[in-house]
C-alpha cells in the first residue's frame, strides 16, 4: 500500500486495484499475429493492471536525477515539476497545450508538460531547461546575446523548443526555425531576437 502522510481526496483511502489478466484469451484470438505476440510478451511481464488513485508516490527522472514526490494521478507533469519539485523553468501560461511555455523534453521529444500527466512519465527521461548548457555554446547564451527575450516568461519554452530543434537539425534555415518554434507564443514579441539567437546557436553548436 501507499505510504503517505497526506490524506487522499474525499477521505477515500488510497488504493491500488488489480485487474486480473484472466479472460484475455477470447480477445486475443482475434488479434493479428503481430499483436498477439506482443500481447504474449506483455502478459509475461504483467498480467494485471494496476489502478492508482488518491495521493500516490511518484518517481520522476528529471535531468538525470531520480526525484521522488507525492502527487495525484491528475497532477500534470508541469504542476508536479513546478509545485512539488521546484523545477520552475517551465512555465504555466495557457495550461491547455497551446502556448509552449511549459515545453519540456520527454524521451527526446518536446511535449507540453501542462497537458501530460506526471504519472505517465514515470520511467521516462525528462529534460528541462535547467539542464541546458549556459555557457557560450549553449542556446540560453545565444538568446541572451541576441536579446531573444523581453519579459522572459515565454523564454524557457522557446529555448527548449530551440534546443530540441537544433539537436535534430544542425543547420536550419530561417523557415525551419520558424516552423520548429510554431508551438510557442511570445506576447512581448521577441521573435526577431529569437530567430537570430537560433541561427547563432546553430552556428556555435556546429563550431563546438
Amino acid at each position, binding site marked *: 500500500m501507499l505510504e503517505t502522510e497526506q490524506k487522499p481526496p474525499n477521505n477515500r483511502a488510497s488504493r491500488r486495484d488489480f*485487474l486480473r489478466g484472466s479472460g*484475455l484469451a477470447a*480477445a486475443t484470438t482475434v488479434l493479428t499475429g503481430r499483436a498477439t505476440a506482443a500481447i504474449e510478451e*506483455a502478459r509475461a511481464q504483467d498480467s494485471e493492471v494496476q489502478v492508482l488513485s488518491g495521493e500516490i508516490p511518484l518517481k520522476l527522472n528529471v535531468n538525470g536525477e531520480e526525484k521522488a514526490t507525492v502527487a495525484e494521478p491528475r497532477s500534470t507533469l508541469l504542476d508536479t515539476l513546478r509545485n512539488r519539485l521546484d523545477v520552475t523553468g517551465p512555465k504555466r501560461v495557457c495550461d491547455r497545450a497551446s502556448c509552449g511555455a511549459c515545453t519540456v523534453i520527454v524521451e527526446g521529444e*518536446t511535449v507540453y508538460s501542462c497537458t501530460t500527466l506526471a504519472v505517465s512519465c514515470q520511467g521516462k527521461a525528462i529534460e528541462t531547461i535547467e539542464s541546458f548548457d549556459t555557457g557560450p555554446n549553449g542556446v540560453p547564451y545565444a538568446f541572451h546575446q541576441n536579446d531573444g527575450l523581453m519579459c522572459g516568461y515565454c523564454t524557457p519554452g522557446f529555448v527548449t523548443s530551440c534546443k530540441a530543434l537544433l539537436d535534430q537539425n544542425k543547420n536550419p534555415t530561417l523557415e525551419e526555425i520558424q516552423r520548429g518554434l510554431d*508551438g510557442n507564443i511570445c506576447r512581448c514579441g521577441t521573435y526577431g531576437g529569437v530567430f537570430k539567437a537560433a541561427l547563432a546557436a546553430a552556428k556555435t553548436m556546429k563550431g563546438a
Partner: protein
Amino acid sequence: MNAFEYAGPTSPELAVKAIGRSGAAFLSGGTDLLNRMKDYVATPSRVVYINDIKPLAGVHASGGAMSIGAATKLAAIVHDKTIEAHLPALHRATAEVGTPQLRHMATIGGNLLQRPRCWYYRNGFGLLGMKDGKSLVRTGDNRYHAIFLTDGDALFVNPSSIAAPLIALGAEATLLGPKGERTIAVEKLYQVPKSAADSELTIAADELLTKVTIPRIRGKNATYEIRQKRAYDWPIVLASAALELDGSKVTSAKIILAGVAPIPWRSEEAEAAIVGKELTTESAEAAGAAAVSKAKPLSMNAYKVTLAKVAVKRALLTIAGKKYWEEA
C-alpha cells in the same frame, strides 16, 4: 480537473478490460481529453492510459496496404516516407495539425476520436450548444460552425483534420471491445447527433480503436487546408480528394471536406461534377462550385462557403499539379 483513478495497462486487451465500466475514458496523447477534463467538460472517474501500449503504435506497410496503430504519434506519420510519397493527402493534413510539441504527443486514434472544438461545447453548453432549449450557436458567434446540415440542431463541425484524408483514401478502423474485434469504415465512426444526449461518435465507450488500415491506393490524392495563421491554427476548411485517373480523365473520385459539417463531409456533388471529366482548372472550379451547391451557411459564416469551394478546387488542382496560388 476532477480526481480519477488511473490505470496504465500494457496491452490492448488489458486496456479494454480496465475501461470496462461507465465513466471511464481512454487517455492517449491527452491533448484533447485533458483539456476537456480541465474545463470539466469531461469528468471520467477512471482514465486508462494507452499511449505506451507498444502494439498500438507504429506504421506498417504490407502488400500496398498501410496500417497505422491508434497510438501512433502524428510526428511518426509525418516522418513516414511511404506515407509522404503515396498518401500526400494524409501526410499534408497530418503535418499541418497543431505544433511540433502537439505532434509529438497527439495520436492518430485520439485525433479521429477527439471531441468537437465548438466553443459552445467547450464552454459547457453541450454538443448542440443549447441554453434553455434554444440554440446559442444559431443566434450567436457561429463563424467557425457548420455550413451543411444546418437545418438540424448539430451545428458544430467535426474537428479532425485527419479523418477527411483517411475517408477519401477508403480507410478502415479496427475496434476492440469486450466482445472482440470489429472493423468499420472510418466514416462510420461518425454520426450526426440527434439530441443533446447523443454522441457524434459511434464507437462504444468500452471500445478501443486499435488501428486504421488504408487499402492499396491506385490513384492520386491531395489535401488542401485553409487556415488563418501560418503558425498553428485550426483549418477553417480543409478538403481531401482521392482520384483515380485514366490519363487526365477522372474515373472515380472521393472528396471529403472538414470544418463544414458535424461529420467529415463527403461531397457527392463535387464527386459527380468531376468524374468523367478531364482534370482541368475549369472542371476543378466546377467541382468546387458543386461542392457548395447545397451549403446553407449560418448568420456569420457565409465566407466558409467560399472557402469550401476554393479548398475543393485547390485539392483537385494539387493532384493535377496545377497550382495557380502561392503556398502559405
